[in-house]
């Protein structure tokens, strides 16, 4: 034998969402369950590992698999059944949230939980068990799944619901795609009366007020999200702006019918009416340095000082990350550090984290806060508290310093009883992961994996990293 048996012509470099990582993989786009099965078979014969990939919107290595197989499921994106009476939708795993809401909105429904971008696929959303700006009220997306079917690497096809194969249900959702491949997913949509939300935006002058405002608004609102000025120090540390939104009801929305049309939800194609948004990221690039971050954040805070209440479409409120297409390109290489900390300890921990990042000259350029509550899924990231997501620009010169800083952050978060999210943080060590998950959870997950995937066919760079395989 003097030739390669592997299909090297399929080798492709795939990236994470922040363009800060790439890995070469044998890329497949299966279109049916049979094809997925034959890819498993090929992988088993050739000693390769398989990773499932959706839209590739994870900030870390969740959908990367160096020198292994990556199965991109975005071509398995059919809606199998949509019932506008019950709001139950059954779809293939590659269906994006965008294609989902386009179908359900005209019938007065909206996905109960959405991510900050609508490009994500249902399979990816379940694998990571995404949350939205309503996590405190609606939980993660997994709580709205009534049933799913999955293909296990053993070849078995299973049907899971909260009551049927409940252990698999609660572990495959949140399981990073390491236990099996979702083949169809049934989700309960949320009934809405209007296509618009009433948004109340107001400034908060410091971290204490910031968290207090989220805490107080959450119980009376449908969505709450905070923007945190990461560059402000001293008495203004943690200042920012809260957006609290409520569903509009038929009685108080004269334009109800209009809002339920897809074209009235779509984000405008130009900014300030002139600039095509596809080029905006070029103009953002010059601001992606420390002084620029400070300028943009300060200007945003000053602008937020005026209280405002306005109406906004669901799409415009939720999908901020889609507002400027390819915005992440402006940063070159980007990572996100998100921590979930109980409400009792969050303020002190984040005070320390924000102060350290400012002192080291590596302030984040964007901070986002949310309110959370615990859930029953095995690899859960949620706590009864808050999350703070910090975006950082990675440069050739700051890598080593930033790594040391993030390792210190991990310690602060863990000491505060916090947790991490496997779709976001890219540097979480196996030790940190084991600590927040707990030995029992890790053992349970490994036992389940032994059952569904005894030959460890499913592995991603993320799984190998956080489980030290």
């Amino acid at each position, binding site marked *: 034998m003097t030739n390669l048996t592997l299909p090297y012509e399929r080798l492709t470099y795939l990236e994470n969402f922040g363009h800060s990582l790439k*890995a*070469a993989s044998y890329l497949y786009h299966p279109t049916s369950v049979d094809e997925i099965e034959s890819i498993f078979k090929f992988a088993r014969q050739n000693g390769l590992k398989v990773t499932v990939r959706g839209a590739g919107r994870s900030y870390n290595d969740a959908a990367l698999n160096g020198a292994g197989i990556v199965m991109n499921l975005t071509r398995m994106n059919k809606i199998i059944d949509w019932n506008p009476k019950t709001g139950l939708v059954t779809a293939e795993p590659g269906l994006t949230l965008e294609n989902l809401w386009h179908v359900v909105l005209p019938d007065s429904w909206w996905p109960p939980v959405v991510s900050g971008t609508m490009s994500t696929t249902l399979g990816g959303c379940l694998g990571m068990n995404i949350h939205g700006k309503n996590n405190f009220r609606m939980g993660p997306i997994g709580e709205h799944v009534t049933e799913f079917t999955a293909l296990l690497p053993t070849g078995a096809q299973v049907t899971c619901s909260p009551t049927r194969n409940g252990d698999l249900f609660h572990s495959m959702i949140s399981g990073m795609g390491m236990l099996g491949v979702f083949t169809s997913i049934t989700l309960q949509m949320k009934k809405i009366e209007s296509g618009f939300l009433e948004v109340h935006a107001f400034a908060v002058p410091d971290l204490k007020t910031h968290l207090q405002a989220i805490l107080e608004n959450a119980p009376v609102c449908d969505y709450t999200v905070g923007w945190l000025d990461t560059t402000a120090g001293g008495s203004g540390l943690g200042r920012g702006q809260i957006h609290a939104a409520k569903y509009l009801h038929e009685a108080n929305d004269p334009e109800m019918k209009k809002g339920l049309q897809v074209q009235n939800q779509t984000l405008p194609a130009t900014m300030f009416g002139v600039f095509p948004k596809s080029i905006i990221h070029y103009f953002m690039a010059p601001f992606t340095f420390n002084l620029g971050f400070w300028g943009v954040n300060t200007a945003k805070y000053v602008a937020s000082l005026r209280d405002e209440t306005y109406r906004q479409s669901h799409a415009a409120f939720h999908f901020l990350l889609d507002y400027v297409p390819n915005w992440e390109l402006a940063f070159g290489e980007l990572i996100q550090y998100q921590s979930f900390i109980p409400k009792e300890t969050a303020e002190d921990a984040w005070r320390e984290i924000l102060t350290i990042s400012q002192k080291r000259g590596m302030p984040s350029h964007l901070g986002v806060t949310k309110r959370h509550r615990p859930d029953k899924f095995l690899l859960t990231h949620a706590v009864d508290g808050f999350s703070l997501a910090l975006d950082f620009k990675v440069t050739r010169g700051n890598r080593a310093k930033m790594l040391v800083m993030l390792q210190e952050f991990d310690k602060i978060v863990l000491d505060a009883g916090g947790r991490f999210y496997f779709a976001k943080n890219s540097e979480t060590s196996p030790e940190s992961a084991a600590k927040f998950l707990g030995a029992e959870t890790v053992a349970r997950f490994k036992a389940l994996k032994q059952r569904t995937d005894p030959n460890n066919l499913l592995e991603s*760079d993320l799984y190998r990293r956080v489980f030290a395989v």
Partner: protein
Amino acid sequence: MPVNKTTAATPLQPRRRAIIIGSAQGLGAAMARRLAREGYLLGLADRNGELLGKVCAEINQAGGPGQARAYVHDVTNTEEVPALLQKIMADLGGLDAFIYVAGILLPTTPTTYEFDKDRKMMEVNALGALAWYNLVAPIFQALHSGTIVGVSSVAADRGRLGNPGYNASKAALDTYLEALRNRLTRHGVHVLTVKPGYMDTDMLKGVERPFLVASPDKAAEDIWNAMRRRKQTIYTLGAWGLIMLIIKHIPSLIFRRLSF
């Protein structure tokens, strides 16, 4: 076990990966140590498993377990190359650079003719390299990325009376690398030809080395710099470039009467 935790790449701990064929001693071992200092994950192959194990152990002591992995391989056994390449790539989690250093010089005299020696040098210096390049090239071509390094020699530039078989084996490799470069540059792949002059390694033990002798570490440094700067052909030491420029232009009328 494919990738352990020390081989996981993250945005803040990026990893590049290289294979070095012929890395148990001399220039290959020096290259391994040089790339290890740059943080490369290394797949090291050599027929001398014992010496190779020592090189790996030394690198892993400094860089953490798993930075260098040893694979015992005799380059004349071309049959095992495809499976071995696939295994190393899976173990490393990818491939950014492929470096072929393996080479032998079997001494002879201007009046002896020994086909067995010529064949052995052809097999190790040229054919073994071709077996690997034919597999690595399409992979890098598919990825539109990667660096291929081959260690030719100043001996490739002119055939001399001392060792025709060695000259021919290095000339074959040299021309092959040039052709490979012409195929792959358009696909974004970098092909580097390295032409060492005298070097302080076991290969030239007993050979008189009057001037311009490079230490393996110095040569490895030159090669690393050439990889970074995407040079096409380098001489090490650099002064050999000038010397060979002159030698290449000596007319045959004179050259065939010289005694070196």
